[in-house]
């Protein structure tokens, strides 16, 4: 065709470069959109109150206020609240990962009448908003004398979580039947098969599950706010409620500094468990 001869297609290498350029540009823009709010939070944490209210907007602080981080740390019992958050998060994440693996194993490898229906109900319960169960949950724990204790997180941990059960079920369903059959021939029961064979193979999902569960609990505001008194509460609640002046007005820059510090443990845990997390999400078919 004439047009082809007049405008010959660019060489493959050029086309690949162009595609990559477009792809990277889109990725940079999307990354910027995701990082934008966090970047604004960091900048807010480094400003004075006057600079926060200035016009036109000071995007970059004129004098960086590093001491805001120290002030935010000192204004409340930051370490105490962080310790409470860590206790609850490790407790829940550890227990729920094990219990969800156990339940997921059952759904993946065992047969029983009504299994599919039961699994459907379990997955359907993910659609139930937390707000709906809030008051009944409080009333139950109040009757059991567990308000203002960490027992609710132990019980929640032991009860497994539908999403994590689904995650484990998907993973275990993909493991070869021969493994199980060989173990049965060797005289293993289902419990031994789970502990000795399936669980050691599932470290990527265990890692993903732990990170997810830890993040849920670390970031949860509603449950600790509802069930714990101020001194036993978590960092998420403290950051939201305690950075106020004596007149109750918000101290925005210190709250922003505290929020930045609040994110750090999650980032560290993700960095440590990153490989397992990514592998876990890939191997369960949820990529």
């Amino acid at each position, binding site marked *: 065709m004439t047009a082809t001869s007049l405008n010959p297609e660019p060489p493959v290498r050029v086309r690949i470069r162009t595609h990559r350029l477009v792809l990277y540009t889109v990725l940079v823009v999307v990354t910027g959109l995701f990082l934008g709010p966090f970047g604004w939070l960091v900048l807010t944490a480094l400003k004075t109150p006057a600079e926060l209210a200035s016009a036109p907007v000071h995007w970059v602080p004129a004098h960086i206020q590093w001491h805001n981080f120290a002030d935010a740390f000192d204004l409340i019992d930051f370490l105490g609240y962080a310790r409470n958050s860590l206790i609850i998060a490790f407790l829940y994440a550890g227990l729920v990962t094990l219990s969800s693996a156990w339940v997921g194993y059952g759904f993946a490898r065992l047969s029983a009448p009504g299994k599919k229906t039961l699994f459907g109900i379990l997955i359907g319960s993910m659609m139930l908003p937390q707000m709906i169960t809030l008051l009944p949950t409080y009333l139950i724990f*109040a009757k059991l004398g567990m308000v203002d204790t960490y027992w609710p997180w132990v019980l929640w941990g032991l009860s497994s979580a539908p999403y994590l059960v689904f995650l484990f079920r998907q993973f275990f369903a993909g493991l070869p039947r021969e493994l199980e059959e060989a173990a049965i021939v060797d005289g293993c029961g289902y419990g031994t098969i789970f502990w000795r064979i399936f669980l050691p193979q599932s470290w990527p999902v265990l890692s993903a599950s732990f990170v997810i569960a830890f993040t849920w609990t670390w970031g949860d505001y509603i449950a600790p706010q509802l069930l714990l*008194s101020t001194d036993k509460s978590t960092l998420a609640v403290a950051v939201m409620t305690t950075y106020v002046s004596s007149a109750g007005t918000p101290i925005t820059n210190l709250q922003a500094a505290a929020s930045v510090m609040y994110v750090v443990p999650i980032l560290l845990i993700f960095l440590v468990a990153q490989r397992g997390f990514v592998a876990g999400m890939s191997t369960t078919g949820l990529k």
Partner: protein
Amino acid sequence: MRPHAGAPMSRRRFLSLSAAGAAGGAAALSGCAMQVSSGVGGGSGETVTMMVKADDITPDLVQQALKDTGIAIKRVDFDITKLIAMLTSGNPPDLVRGVGAVDAAYFAAREVMEDLDPYFARSQVLRRDDLDPVNDLWRFDGTTQGKGPRYGMAKDFSQDSMYWYNTSAFDKQGVSYPAELEPTTYEEWLDTAQRLVQRSKGQTSLFGGTYNGLLKATLMSTLTASAGGSLFNDDFSRVDFTTPEARKALGWYIEYCRLKVGASPILPDPNGWDGPTYQAGRLAMCNSGYWMGGMIATDPKLAEVSRLAPTPVFEGGPRVSACQAGTGLWMPKKAPHKDAAWRIFEWYFGEAPAKARASGGWGIPTLKSLRPLMPAKAEHQKRVLKVQENELKHFSVVAFSPYTTGDSFEALFNQVAPAAMKGEISVDTLAGRLNSVLNEQLKRGKEQVG
């Protein structure tokens, strides 16, 4: 019909308390014959649970309470859902924070508050003749706020329709200052705000003035009172924005928003409130009462150029200077440690914490005997105090409806009113729409109370 004391919690009652998104508890009104505290000194060695915000009781004050009274305080963050849950479970906090202007009638009507009259009658610390009239915000006689038994007390207060202004902003624009003790009119206030506002390249470098009150509920009811009317009917079961007075108040506020001379629902302040904007010198007039002087005093330069001005009036209207908050504490009827709670109540409102608040300048003390502690050493403090003392003569309680929460009113108002603020509908259309949505809400509230 109201539930009888001692009756088990009905489903209807449970729903009435939680569905409204506020308030308190079905607490199957225990009805035990009222057991009154033995008074001062009760409850030593006990632990009192206080549902408060962080600034109400600091950890230092918790320590001080233990030292002063022998009573330990367990703090619980104020949260309305948690309050409902605690009331419903029958194990409420001993003392709860509340905004007297909007919470007192609401909770009292639902019979979850303890009548504190017998406690006040016996108290040597909180004598009834020493109580500032602002504490009447915590009274409710079954129909009207401001009368009847006392259900709580304000920790400090301001007359929240007053405003602060920055003299340097006035000087720059060559605008004369408002009179020191005589009120300007709302119409003049808006005109002044327009003259002061500074805009450049689509950005506002100096806002002329903000006027949003504390809550839309109290703002609209006090503005209507200033126009000589009432936003509610006699039994507080309906609003009417189409009366000449309410229409005037609504029209003025919508005009204020439309002119964009200051923050409003369609032009929110990025700081969440206008104090930092005023502090940064970007706001010429700021609708806040005496309490904001506490913040202003922390910056000597700002204090020097700041003046407090009386609440404006509408032309031909009465001079009304209400308190739109009166934040304080109340005691649930089923509080487990009433004696200890009352002792902490006395300590908080009449002893060391009350004295510290009074001398801090963050609000007017709610005991008349503590007024001499208000800061008056520096020149700017003397100026402010003079204006404030004169303004107290014009204080009155503007009663609010027991059938809605301030938050519900705010949410519905902010849902409907922006269309008028943007000029998409007329003020008359807005008045009709507000009547419709708010009266529906009030009707539900009245059904719940019975």
